[in-house]
């Protein structure tokens, strides 16, 4: 087992920081890379899933992102840079994915089969409806909305990730929220301003 996993398992040895794990992954320790994957897989898979609304496509895309990461580990300077890099590559790949004619959109029942999130005081039908409405947005507004609400990023961070002017990001978000409000209202959901 790697040092990292040993360290994580033992209460006497301090848990390595993510920068340490990154350094080990760069040094070619497979377990360290696996730890990076496990650390960030929910972020990458979540972005892909909310964008594509397909478990199988999101899984394939997320795997591709981590393969690209493995090939480009030497470029990653820090744990913070890693997160930015993963968000950027995932976002670009999502947009490329829907533009590619070979990746026809799967409109399937996968949404219904997704594992239930932890029990919350939340209407699951409304969640599903919102995800579907977000998935109907055009690619750029869709990735802006997904980054904004999944990752809770501010607009300047989103502009950096998707390489767009800040005003374009603002405009995409404002229009997307208007569209979502209108579509929800059409379906009888009353909303605040």
């Amino acid at each position, binding site marked *: 087992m790697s040092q990292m996993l040993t360290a994580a398992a033992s209460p006497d040895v301090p848990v390595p920081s993510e920068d340490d794990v990154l350094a080990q992954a760069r040094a070619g320790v*497979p377990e360290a*890379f*696996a730890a990076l*994957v*496990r650390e960030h*897989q*929910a*972020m990458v*898979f*979540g972005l892909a*899933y*909310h964008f594509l609304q397909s*478990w199988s496509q*999101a*899984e394939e895309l*997320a*795997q*591709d992102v*981590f*393969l*690209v990461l*493995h*090939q*480009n580990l030497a470029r990653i300077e820090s744990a913070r840079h890693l997160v930015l890099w993963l968000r*950027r*590559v995932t976002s*670009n*790949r999502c*947009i*490329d994915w829907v533009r590619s004619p070979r990746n026809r959109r799967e409109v399937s029942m996968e949404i219904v089969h*997704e*594992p239930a*999130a932890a029990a*919350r005081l*939340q209407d699951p039908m*409304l*969640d*599903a409806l*919102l*995800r579907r409405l*977000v998935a109907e947005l055009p690619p750029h507004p869709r990735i802006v*909305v*997904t980054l*904004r*609400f*999944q990752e*809770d990023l501010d607009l300047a961070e989103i502009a950096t990730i998707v*390489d767009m002017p800040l005003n374009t990001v603002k405009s995409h978000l404002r229009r997307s*929220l208007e569209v*979502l*409000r209108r579509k*929800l209202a059409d379906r009888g*959901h*009353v*909303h*605040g301003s």
Partner: protein
Amino acid sequence: MDLERELRQALTRKSPPRGFDEKVLGRIASGEKVALPKPPARWTGYALPVAASLAIVAGGSFYFWQHERQRQMDAEQTARNVVLALQITSAKVSAVQMKVQEISRYERQAQY
């Protein structure tokens, strides 16, 4: 309903299917390579507005050129018509003058 709060709840991070990390490591171990997606080229964002501007300028120029050409042709036609009218008038005046001279000559001969 607070839409932004609902969106935060609907778009939470999602854990991938079990064994995701093993699949990634398996693909790496098999030597599979995936190309880094190219960031969208900056010029593509400007291509449409630039093309639209060029089309408007070209269309406008063509329209004004065509309009000017038509105006010029109309002016030339008008000038030709005026010249023709003057020629006709001149011919008529000459004919009348000849008639008047002829009548005057006959009158003078009749007096003698």
